[in-house]
């Protein structure tokens, strides 16, 4: 399949979209206090970075964009697994009702 001819304006548009995706994830990370929502926001941020890599790789006709995407994907999967494992552990250890599932739970850890 031949590479589509991508103008620099198209690339800038895609990169701006990727930055907007990252900013949306950042907004979600700052606004939400539930840990599950914060983890989803981090995934959105990572998908923004992935779009930037793949778009740049397509512009230059280089497979390195997709190679970087594979590494970003592995990182996202490891981070999601670890984040959710931590979340479940926190839920089990700190079980009060007013801050259940919040990132405020972390301040109730002993020691």
């Amino acid at each position: 399949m031949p590479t589509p001819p991508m103008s620099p304006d198209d690339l800038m548009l895609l990169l701006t979209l990727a930055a907007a995706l990252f900013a949306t994830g950042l907004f979600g990370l700052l606004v939400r206090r539930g840990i599950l929502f914060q983890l989803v926001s981090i995934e959105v941020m990572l998908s923004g970075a992935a779009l930037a890599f793949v778009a740049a790789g397509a512009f230059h006709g280089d497979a390195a964009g997709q190679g970087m995407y594979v590494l970003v994907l592995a990182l996202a999967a490891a981070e999601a697994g670890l984040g959710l494992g931590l979340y479940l552990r926190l839920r089990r250890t700190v079980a009060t009702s007013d801050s259940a599932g919040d990132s405020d739970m972390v301040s109730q850890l002993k020691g």
Partner: protein
Amino acid sequence: MSVGLGVAFGLAGLLSATLAVTRASAARTLLWLLVSLLALAGAFFALTATFAAVLQILVYAGAVVAVFVFVLITVDVSPAALARERDRLRRDWLLPAAVALLVVLPLLIGPGAAGLPGSASLPDAPATAGQGPGIPPLSPKAVGMLLFGPWAVAVEVTSFLLLAGLLAVRHFGRRPPADGATTPAPPPAGPEGGDT
């Protein structure tokens, strides 16, 4: 497949990601996240990055969201909790929105495409080493040659990362013993060796 279609898919991904981070219910958030990830996969297909697109569907939208859905089972979904989330969203959204806008502002008002070389000025064969003359530059074969060739060390380091993540999650998931000891009791000894 045109780049315009890729931009349209990217826009759909952006809109559904915005919806995902602003929902009060965790289930709705995950559904919109799924839509966003699949829209990005469509964008990758439109940019002829088929390997990335298929990986996005299989791993990102498939495995990662599935793990999120498992954890969703433990989330509090009573109306009081949803009302609490909605109040929080309505109260303090201004400062995070300003910070997020600051991140994307340089690309919105900045130099634009002025400094980038046109793709027509690129040579036919991309700069990645070891590629044969007939391999399409964005095909899975090209990505495979990159990952097994010059980037093999990076792949090994990534596998260390995944192994570390696996062991850490296994450690987190361990149930502590009921008597409060910090290390779990050793498993009961099996039949003594030497029988075989």
